[in-house]
């Protein structure tokens, strides 16, 4: 008889009488339930921070910072003025500089500025102002937008996006969205 068999034999000899008593059964059940509870508590204590580490970055609030575009002094009425902007954005532990282009249109008749994104709403190419055709033209799929950003030509499904903007001390700022 090897050791294991010997132990089982010894166990059979000495333990079984315990197994049959109600006291033993209730004690074992108590220990089982308590073990289960404690194991659940351990799983929670560990599981919550671990889940949080994975899910946390996804739940981070996206900021909408104000980004400087440029001075207003050089904008002629009725002609879209092209501005490039850049802003720093956190990418995990990185901070990267993101750049973009916006068009500022000062109406000939006066009134508030319009700031349009240069990203075509079709598939994301960069539109450019064509002064001959007086339209924003997309070189990718021949999409076209008028000076107010409305679709006039081609496949774009909706007008050019507009930036929320403000003017402070002669400088125009736009609000960009992270993400």
């Amino acid at each position, binding site marked *: 008889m090897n050791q294991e068999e010997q132990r089982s034999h010894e166990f059979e000899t000495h333990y079984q009488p315990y197994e049959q008593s109600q006291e033993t059964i209730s004690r074992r059940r108590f220990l089982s339930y308590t073990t289960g509870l404690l194991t659940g508590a351990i799983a929670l204590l*560990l599981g919550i921070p671990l889940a949080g580490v994975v899910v946390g970055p996804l739940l981070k609030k996206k900021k909408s910072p104000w980004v400087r575009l440029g001075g207003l002094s050089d904008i002629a009425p009725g002609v879209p003025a092209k501005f490039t902007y850049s802003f720093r954005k956190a990418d995990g532990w990185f901070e990267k500089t993101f750049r973009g282009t916006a068009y500022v249109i000062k109406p000939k008749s006066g009134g508030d500025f319009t700031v349009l994104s240069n990203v075509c709403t079709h598939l994301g190419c960069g539109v450019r102002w064509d002064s001959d055709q007086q339209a924003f033209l997309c070189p990718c799929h021949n999409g076209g937008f008028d000076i107010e950003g409305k679709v006039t030509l081609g496949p774009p499904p909706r007008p050019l996006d507009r930036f929320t903007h403000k003017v402070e001390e002669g400088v125009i700022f736009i609000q960009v969205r992270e993400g």
Partner: protein
Amino acid sequence: MLRRILKWIDEQSDLVSITRHFLEEPLAKGVGWPHVFGSLALFCFMIQMVTGVFLLLYYTPTPDHAHETVSFITHELPFGKIVRGLHHWGASAMALVVGLHMLQVFVWGAYKKPRQVIWLLGVGLLLLTMGLAFTGYLLPWDMKAYWAMVVGTNIAGAVPIIGEYIRVLVRGGDSVGALTLTRFFTIHTCILPALLIGLSVFHLFQVRKRGITPPWRKVGDEENVEYNQRFYPEQIFKDVVVAMMAVALLVFIAGHYGAPLERVASPSETGYVPRPEWFFLYQFQFLKYFPGKLEFLGAVVIPGIVVLAMLLLPYVDTNPHRLPRKRPIAMFLGIGLFVVITALGVMGLASAPKQRELSQQEKVGEKLFLDLRCQTCHGINGGGGSAGPDLAGATMNDPSKLRTLLRNPQAFNPRSIMPKYELSSAQMEGIVAFLRSIGKNSQMPKSPAIGPKKPQGHFAEEWLTQHKYEVRKDPAQCSSCHKPQFCQTCHQNRRPDSHQKQWIKSHFGTAMEKPEYCAVCHERSFCTACHQDVLHTSQWLTEHKRGLEKRPEICKECHQSKDFCISCHKGAEPASHGPNWINTHKKSATRSCNVCHTQDFCSSCHTGATPQSHDARWSRTHGRSAGLGCQKCHNDSFCQSCHKVSMPHPRGWRSRLHQPQAQRDPSTCGTCHDQSFCTRCHVRSKPSSHTSKWRRNHKAAVKQQGDASCQNCHGPNSPISCKSCHGLDMPHPDDFALRHTRVASYKRDSLCTKCHKINEFCVKCHEAKDFQK
């Protein structure tokens, strides 16, 4: 439902049966709480595995990003501090629990036959645990990690003959660097965990096969042992209780204290005092007793002997008894080793140089040091900035010099970029006391994180000299964190390299094309201070005449060449130059002609045809107008040709500069000034030459230099003419020697004797008896 699922799984794989068989292992009477350490060690390892995997989601094993990612996990990632803390403190817990488990097995004699292999596997697991601990704490790439690796790999190099190869192999090169980090990362996350899992499974298998040792039974006497409990639930309950306590403690420590993270590794920082983690402190202390060539003994030989002894223990110790009192030698050696290791560890901990407690005044200074952010430029024993000298090595300790340095750093070095500080006396005394308290064991005080996180690039050693390139690449990068005053803090005393001498003329190109460059360092008001009224908008071409009228001198800052104006105005006169301009221009002549016209332009008309203002009396009256517009037409040499000195008089002329010129050539003053002009001052205050003995000695000066200099001030019309003192016109006329008899006979005593002694001067011509009455 659950039973049916389990039954199906068991039918397919026997998994449930195997598990049940494992859990229902009978355990001997007496097996209980002392036997929880094995399961606890396994549980700690599982915590390390799980938390390690989750940390891998964000950690990057490169020197550029390792510290940054660990800092991100610790400070920015939600729950990151807890997960990293669990991993850090879990490692310490695992090392401790593995040691306790081995100690329990030793004391219980459970290593003896037939369980020798279990003990051998346990020693292997101990070594793997220490290996995991050693490779793990390099990964944050902070100062502690870096220097621990330098020292640790140098210890590996202490092995004779092959030590150098081992060191290079472990480091991945000659020095601790990127390759060291990646090697240790691979060893820590892949190789050692795989080995440990394999060894643990084998270890558990052997434990299950042989069974847990019945307490205190002699070797070979395991029959008739009472087995009155099962592994599940009796022993597992105890294991889970202890595991629960361990997890609760670890979560508390991780949440409350977090895991430490020192500053990013810097190989050039030699002032850092490295200390290993607590589980290597005994080795650190032990090596102190084996200096120089003996290091190999302490690092490799003796620890190797100890490990060998542990491996051979089950085979060498043939005493069949397991009771401690019946194993005195084994107990003495085992407990003795435990005590020695603990004592060495405590001694190692106590040997760390302690920082002196700061006095109240020094604490005030320390706080001010951090508030003023002095650590940005200055380090203390390496920690901190490198723009300025390290304060621990500072030679200046004199309080008065320190105060002067803080108030005016440029007094010691004109090119210093250190800003000046206006501090109250209490603040000054505090910071001086703190600076004087810094010694070779001092460390940089911990400063709270303020504002946005510092980018990793700012920690590079050459950042101070190289940041200008980053500014040029992307000025928005600086502006996103720093306001212009920040740049001025240093650059007010030292202009950037780009702002050369001619910058005032050449900056307009940059300002037009890339105004964001200027905005990094300058507020808008800085530009408008110059450009106010002269902002070259698109209407400037028609508007600039108004700006010219307001501030004509500002145009010359950029447009120094007259050709610039003439290029437009040649043939196209400004609006101000109307038909009658040639007659009316004199009113504006002193103000703005030179903006466009050189002197030659004016001289082309005015040579031979003086302006109307230059009438007959002009040479006498122009002094009142001089300085207001002479330079428009005349250069300095023109004025000097008459005045013989620079005109108008330079600053300091009245107080100190005119005296030498007046003494050299008094007629120079007479070109413009009459005597009353000089005496207006000199009645009240004499020239410097007129000392207290002047009255007696001026005769020699007059004889030497002539009386011309006297006549400038003391001429016949002056209130203090020579006659007013001498009673006669001075100097004597040429024929006075022949005509003085009449004066001398009546006024000898009142006049002649003022200057001449009778018995010395008069007797040269006269008989002495002539003067006797």
